[in-house]
């Protein structure tokens, strides 16, 4: 057992009670925000998070139940930088109780322009005790594309209004003049103002609930518990680090060129260096930032790291800076994982999703307790718009898709799922889509043989087919044709994803790359997302599991025979004798 400071061991019961009390305040902030939000997207999908910081400021607890993981680290990295930036420029207008700072600047701790953070210092009897903070993805903040996800943006100024850290709220009231300015730059001003008010309400709720805890348990007990909560998470992280082998563990992931990258390959490099109790995550060697908007900011990369660390330590451990404290992180500035102005960043989450996969691949090698094959590794979003010919009314639709997830040491990956930083974002039913926009979804189905083979199979990728009833402009960030989510411990990679216009172009199928393309009414688009990587050697897969996969159409008879070395009779029954023959000949080849 790891020994903790006297504060926790003196009264472990009170610690557990107050730690979950603090966690509850963060969850209550998230709930308040979602309940009072204006835009449907925020209320139903909850693209937001809420966090409580200590006075240092280090993040202590973060909503994980009512907020999805996409913002796992966006706030953690933002607050110290924003405060420093603000204080150095406005020394005469320091933060007072009831004040809140607002920013969406990707280069002062933010991500992309729609993600807007609101920071409120929390005082007890005049003492700065911490900060209550939340971040929300707003519907529209201007820029050259509605919604702000602009694959063709050339710099950050084409991505909408920038809000450097400013005091937007004084004495719990939004400054009406600044609000007017911001809303004047949004295509959806009511959404922006309404969601901003929900952000203010969430911070006020957080401060009020912290007051209740202070009244009940006393100031020093609450502030001590904040410290011990950090310490608890830190101890959990250290306990994992202590089990890792010493050494340098490196991996490189190469993304093939597209219009976003200015025609260059992009390398993501990670070295995990472990020397006794010192762990370093070094991303040196990663490519310089690119001309298109797929650049990730520091906050995006911290999100990927915190997400993976939190998944490693387990559900009962609060998500806070304690995960990072025992680790040195090197994210070289000016690269695609820590971009500097003025490059565009609106599609920043793609690189974050890739980083999550890179981290899981390297950690899987050295921390077998939580190891799995890779998953789709991109956000996989697309959108289309057009005009209804009968009415002249414009329509627009955005969507992202899940893929197969990596298999692990005890079970198969999940077939067709929104995973990791996208988990918790539900797909819209086809009946809703078709009643809203002139399109017909012909199928949404698993793709046979797309999951990486293994003792445990990677999850299957998804195929979606649209038939358009009007001409549409279809915008997409492409699937990297070279990204086949790797398996581990002998597991094979999953199939790559692609976007295809069926019946057009060479071989009757035109593969789309990043950008916007016109698709005619009655043409058909097929989207295939990647499958997950497998775990372990396919010839060790249980025979019945292979037979079941064949029976349910997840694996073909051919793949069963060629990859899993399992022979089935024409009626689908296991042919045990033939299988044993095939599998033993494979063993001989191996030995």
């Amino acid at each position, binding site marked *: 057992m790891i020994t903790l400071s006297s504060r926790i061991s003196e009264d472990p*019961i009170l610690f557990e009670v107050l730690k979950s009390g603090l966690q509850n305040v963060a969850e209550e902030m998230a709930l308040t925000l979602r309940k009072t939000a204006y835009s449907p997207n925020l*209320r139903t999908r909850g693209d937001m998070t809420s966090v409580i910081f200590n006075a240092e400021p280090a993040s202590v607890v973060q909503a994980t139940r009512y907020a999805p993981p996409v913002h796992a680290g966006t706030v953690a990295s933002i607050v110290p930088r924003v405060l420093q930036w603000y204080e150095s420029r406005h020394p005469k207008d320091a933060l007072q109780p009831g004040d809140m700072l607002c920013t969406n600047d990707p280069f002062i701790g933010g991500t992309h322009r729609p993600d807007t953070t609101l920071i409120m210092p929390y005082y007890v009897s005049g003492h700065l005790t911490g900060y209550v903070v939340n971040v929300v993805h707003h519907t529209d903040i201007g820029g050259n594309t509605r919604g702000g996800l602009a694959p063709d943006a050339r710099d950050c100024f084409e991505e909408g209004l920038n809000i450097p850290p400013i005091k937007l709220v004084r004495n719990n009231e939004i400054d009406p003049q600044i609000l007017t300015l911001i809303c004047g730059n949004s295509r959806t001003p009511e959404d922006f103002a309404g969601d901003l008010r929900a952000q203010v309400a969430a911070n006020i709720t957080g401060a009020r609930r912290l007051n209740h805890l202070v009244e009940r348990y006393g100031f020093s007990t609450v502030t001590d518990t904040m410290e011990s909560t950090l310490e608890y998470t830190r101890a*959990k992280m250290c306990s994992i680090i202590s089990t890792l082998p010493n050494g340098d563990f490196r991996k490189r992931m190469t993304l093939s060129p597209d219009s976003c990258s200015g025609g260059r390959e992009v390398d993501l490099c990670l070295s995990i260096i472990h020397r006794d109790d010192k762990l370093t995550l070094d991303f040196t060697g990663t490519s310089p930032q690119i001309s298109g908007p797929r650049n990730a900011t520091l906050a995006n990369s911290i999100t990927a790291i915190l997400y993976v660390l939190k998944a490693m330590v387990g559900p009962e451990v609060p998500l806070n800076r304690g995960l990072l404290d025992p680790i040195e992180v090197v994210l070289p500035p000016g690269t695609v994982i820590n971009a500097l102005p003025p490059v565009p960043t609106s599609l920043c989450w793609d690189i974050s999703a890739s980083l999550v996969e890179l981290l899981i691949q390297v950690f899987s090698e050295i921390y077998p307790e939580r190891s799995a094959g890779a998953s789709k590794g991109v956000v996989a979003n697309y959108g289309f718009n057009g005009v209804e010919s009968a009415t002249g009314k414009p329509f627009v639709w955005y969507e992202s898709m899940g893929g197969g997830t990596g298999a692990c040491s005890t079970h198969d990956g999940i077939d067709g799922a929104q995973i990791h930083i996208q*988990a918790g974002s539900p797909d819209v039913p*086809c*009946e809703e889509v078709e009643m809203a926009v002139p399109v*017909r979804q012909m*199928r949404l189905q*698993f793709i046979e043989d797309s999951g990486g083979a293994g003792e445990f199979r990677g999850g299957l990728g998804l195929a979606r087919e649209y038939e358009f009833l009007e001409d549409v402009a279809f915008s997409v960030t492409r699937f990297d044709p070279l990204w086949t989510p790797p398996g581990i411990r002998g597991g094979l990679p999953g199939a790559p994803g692609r976007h295809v216009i069926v019946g057009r172009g060479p071989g009757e199928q035109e593969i789309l790359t990043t950008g916007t393309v016109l698709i005619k009414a009655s043409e058909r688009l097929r989207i295939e997302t990647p499958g997950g990587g497998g775990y372990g050697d396919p010839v060790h897969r249980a025979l019945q599991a292979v037979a079941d996969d064949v029976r349910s159409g997840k694996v073909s008879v051919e793949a069963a025979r060629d990859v899993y070395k399992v022979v089935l009779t024409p009626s689908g029954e296991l042919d045990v004798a033939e299988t044993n023959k095939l599998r033993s000949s494979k063993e001989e080849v191996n030995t």
Partner: protein
Amino acid sequence: MSEKPPTNNNLQSSIQEREDIKIGIDTGGTFVDVVVAVGADITVMKFPSVYHGEEGAHNLHQAIVDASRELGFTLHDVDILRFGTTLAVNAILERKLAKTLLLTTEGYRDSIELLRQWAPQYTITGERPRPFIPRHLREEVSERIGASGRVIVPLNVEQVQSILSQYQNSDVESVAISLVFSFLNPAHEEQIEAMVRANWSNMEISRSSTLAPEMGETERTLTTALNASLIPITKRYLRSFDSLKGQGLTCPIFVMQSNGGVINEELAGQRPVTTIMSGPTAGIVAAGFVARNAGLPNVISMDVGGTSCDAALIVNGKVPVAPEGAVPGYPSVSPIKVAMSEISSIAIGGGSIAWVDDVGVLHVGPESQGSMPGPACYGRGGNLPTVTDANVVLGIIGSSRKLGGKIKVQPQLAWDVISEHVAKPLGLSVEDAAAGIIRVATNTIANEMRLMSVSRGIDPREFTLLPFGGAGPNLAVPAAAELGVTEVIIPEYPGALSAYGLLLADVRHDYARTRAVDAANANVDELESLFLAMGEQARLDSNLEGIPSGELHLSRTVDVRYKGQLYCLPIPCSNHITEQEMVRVTETFHQEHGRVYGYSAPGEAVQFVTLRLTCSFHPSHVQRLAEPSHKSMQDSVGPVESRRIYIGMKWVNSKVMDRHNMRSGSEIAGPIVIEQMDATTFIPPGYVAEVDRRKNLRIRSAMMDR
């Protein structure tokens, strides 16, 4: 059955006067609870649960026969028999669903496995719950209805026939039919149903366009698939009641549903998907009844069993019912389209396991010892410390009387497991460790209740806590203190409240039809005819249940939203739709949106999405149960014993009283333990309690009193 109920004499005299017998039975993992009502007189009995799964019906039969012998009535005297069941939910959790074939639109067989592409968060090794029907039994047919309800691709009849032939001699027990946009046009589903019937004369069939004709192919198909795969199991279970009918039982049998109402056995066999929350719902119906009669409009009910605490907010005396709800073990983003009481399940129960992690922090739950092996102190082989073991160490649960009249508590076993697994690792005394377990458990309950309240825009401190279930009353006061709630009300029979609730429930059915039309140019006649069609279905169902149409209460609502939104607000509407009424519904929607979400947009297009009809029948016997009991109140006797309990970091002497010996009107002060056959209540120092005229125990903070 070891303890004689105190009201036996009254009941037997009522029985001799040949009053009808009404029976409510609830089955749990440990006990079968039976409530027998004769007029306003109630008797509560507990019998051990012996059988599980589909065999569990035997527990009910045996309990009914035993109760009739004990109380001296014959089955022929019974005029109402209602039961709550965990059959459906256990079949789901234990994957014991019937082998079922799904027929669905080409391209869509994976929707019930995708669950809207859900995956668990913050895990590298997550899993999704398995689908109700495995993929190889999900067949696609070529056909398509479009978003306007028109046929885009005609049904390929030959293909359907060839699929059916393929399964002709298989052991498939049930067929689910669910096609895209069938809620707008059921023609293809009807055609397939006719073909299935022609193929198999006795096949069980569920079809989405009659069962759940609402928008959302995933949810509609989930509902239909689950219903189909529950039908054979449920029918077998219900058929086993024939043995009671052979012994003279003639009354109809009703089953509790998730919507807070009961359904008769025949309809339950056709729509078992409405019963998946049968168990927890009955208790909440009773909680609402107790609260209303006690003059408390706003209560939080807290039903603590072996594995979980089911909590509900009762507002203005009503249990909120949502038009859809999640299946236990499945994500809330893919609910089933079945009306369900809004209940939050918190993973803390008497059997929840306390454990210390590798850095020395105490946790309670979510793992549970359940009812088997149960807490260590039951002596059934449980070797991990639980919440109940902690209460035994603290002296709150005593060992002198058997729990539920059946289980002998062995305190030493509780001391041993808490010592080994909690006290030693934390460096605490065993009693401090036990107090810690209770504190962490009640804190978890309070935290979850607070979030549940916030998500409905309610301040829990304005509510009264109403605990029940075997472990509710001994955790209630500390949970209330954590939540800032100042009053706790414990009903007369907290350990059998669910069985009591069965007697109180209305007969209820919910119907729905989605159209998703713009309010501005909706066709009044079409909407009215949809409502009338639902009303006709309600009358058919009620006739089958023996309820005259004239006694039905019908109420209509429309789910309304701003066009483009994905969520709706339910707006009640009158029982006859006119142009004027549509305008009124639209205006009410704007106001309601303003009230709930803080803004409205009168300029925006408004959409009527789903029409809903609720049909209920309020049985006349419920009114009699609301009257204060005629039972003679026995003289109050003093504490039956005195016991040392550990509270506030020290051992103190506490009075121990028998609940049934307490007289209404006199106030007693904590610390005091109140025992009864079905539960133990603990009143800490600083709290006072009294029994009200309906025999509820009302506990208040003494500080608040002054």
